[in-house]
């Protein structure tokens, strides 16, 4: 038996801080879907195109990373059983990060490569440093980081590298100094972001949340450590080969990342197999579909890595759509349907338990319309991928119309929960 600890103070930051990130992220998602719909013809071109860069960054920074920051401030203290180092830093980071994101997206959209782009990139790097510092200081007093803690730490390190590379690329846009292909670094920047930062956080958090919500315990955990090392080794490999022609090290690294994803999916299926709660609710449905999409995305990624992608028009953009919408947006939406009702309930009702009647958690969410959104996002993601590859403007229009409808349902459902 280990020594007990008396804890009484709040570990996580106040709800207003977390909800600021969440609300901005949800707004960005709807805005992104609207812009995609209005400019559906724009993205049928080359991916290194200013407007596509703008859309990518609204998705990666405004929607995905924004929501991950909010969720991490909430979850890291709970997972590590240590209070968040600083709520004020988390709040300061929000403003710096939001300003940087808006500035960067605007600069890409109008292709302004001047001082505003540089300032935005610097703001984003400052925000990332504040975040990394806050998480580092939160982790520091924890005697031994568990496997989830190590995944999160890795994710934050890869985020720092992603941001730094982004800064170098934005400087290069204004005053070119890189002697090698800009596109290679862009590729590396994107992959460090998606496979390094986002996937590490997704995997680490999944190890905690999926067993917690499905009541799965005593499942084998043998994949967690190999996944961690495979993924990190693969990412180091593609970083080292980022500036060269594709060579053996690059191919091995890409394969290592693929193997890591497969092992991760096996681990998740082991967890799900051992679950006590057999009912599959909305959040778990989303997650299960998103994990499958993660696998498909990885296969597409390996194809892009091994085949010469530039030969197939729009393949890179289709791959991007798959990552952003098929895999990450589904996973995030699903987690939001778990986390937001709980946080709103905790904020508004937990002090009233036993004193007056409080709503049940399942009364906080409209499961049916949440599952409609899942279906719509799934159909529109595949629709967009196929329309891009087969160059169908009509298909793209219909897909993005559906995606916008999905985003609106998400917005409506989130407002419904927040006002509950």
């Amino acid at each position, binding site marked *: *038996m*280990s*020594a*007990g*600890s*008396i*804890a*009484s*103070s*709040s*570990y*996580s930051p106040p709800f207003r801080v977390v909800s600021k990130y969440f609300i901005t992220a949800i707004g960005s998602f709807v805005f992104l879907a609207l812009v995609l719909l209005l400019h559906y013809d724009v993205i049928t071109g080359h991916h290194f195109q200013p407007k596509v860069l703008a859309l990518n960054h609204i998705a990666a920074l405004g929607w995905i990373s924004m929501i991950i920051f909010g969720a991490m401030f909430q979850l890291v*203290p*709970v997972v590590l*059983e240590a209070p968040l180092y600083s709520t004020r830093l988390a709040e300061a980071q929000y403003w710096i990060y939001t300003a940087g994101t808006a500035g960067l997206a605007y600069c890409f959209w109008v292709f302004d490569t001047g001082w505003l782009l540089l300032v935005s990139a610097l703001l984003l790097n400052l925000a990332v440093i504040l975040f990394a510092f806050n998480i580092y200081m939160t982790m520091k007093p924890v005697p031994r980081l568990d496997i989830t803690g190590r995944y999160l730490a890795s994710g934050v390190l890869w985020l720092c590298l992603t941001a730094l590379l982004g800064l170098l690329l934005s400087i290069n846009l204004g005053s070119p100094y890189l002697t090698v292909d800009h596109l290679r670094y862009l590729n590396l920047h994107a992959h460090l972001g998606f496979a390094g930062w986002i996937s590490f956080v997704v995997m680490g958090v999944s190890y905690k949340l999926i067993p*917690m*919500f499905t*009541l799965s*315990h*005593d499942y084998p955990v043998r994949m967690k450590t190999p996944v961690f090392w495979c993924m990190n080794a693969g990412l180091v490999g593609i970083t080292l080969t980022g500036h060269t022609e594709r060579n053996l090290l690059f191919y091995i690294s890409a394969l290592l990342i693929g193997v890591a994803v497969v092992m991760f999916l096996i681990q998740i299926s082991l967890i799900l197999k051992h679950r*006590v*709660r057999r009912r599959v609710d909305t959040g778990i449905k989303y997650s299960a579909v998103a994990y499958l999409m993660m696998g498909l995305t990885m296969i597409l990624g390996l194809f892009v890595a091994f085949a010469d992608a530039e030969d197939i028009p729009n393949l890179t953009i289709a791959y991007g759509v798959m990552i952003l919408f098929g895999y990450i947006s589904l996973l995030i939406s699903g987690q939001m349907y778990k986390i937001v009702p*709980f946080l709103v*309930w*905790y904020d508004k009702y*937990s*002090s009233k*338990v*036993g*004193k007056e009647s*409080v709503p049940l*958690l399942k009364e906080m969410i409209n499961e049916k319309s949440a599952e409609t959104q899942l279906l719509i996002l799934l159909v529109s993601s595949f629709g967009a991928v196929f329309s891009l590859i087969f160059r169908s403007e009509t298909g793209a229009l219909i897909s993005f119309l559906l995606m916008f409808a999905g985003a609106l349902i998400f917005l409506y459902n989130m407002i419904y929960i927040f006002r509950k």
Partner: protein
Amino acid sequence: MSETNSKDLKPEFLKTVASEKIKELDVRPILSGGQDPFSQIMAAVSALSEGDVLLLINTFEPLPLYKVLARQGFEHYTELDGDEYHIYFWQTETPEQEKAKDLVKKGETSDQVVIELDVRELEPPEPMIKILEKLTTLPECAVLLVHHHREPVMLYPKLEENGFEATANRIAENYYKVLISRKKQ
């Protein structure tokens, strides 16, 4: 049988205690203002120094309070003065009380009532709801021992709000025993 004692049963200790050691708290104005004086009483109790006596003046005999303070090692003596109840509280043998509480914290032994609650088969946030509900009906003399899959860190601020404190002991991976007791004022 009334708890009110006649004057000749007044303990020797109270007869001899210096008058400046007796801290008086009249809760009748609080009661007539429609408020529950409990928190003021507990504040006055925690403000007592060693050897101090609390003299509580009330319109009725606060029987539950006797139990609450007895748990903290207080003895009481009550006398009726017209409509007023004068209740004296003074502390005895605190070291033993401390020791008993520590033992309970370690979950090893207990001279208090231990009520157990297993929330391991519940999906979040049901464990928190069940625990908070259970605490609202927890007898004064009891502690709640919760069997949990993890350390309930989101629960702690809510316990604090309701005047409870918790000790979590990790028994195994995915198994924590969380002992919740009323906070000592």
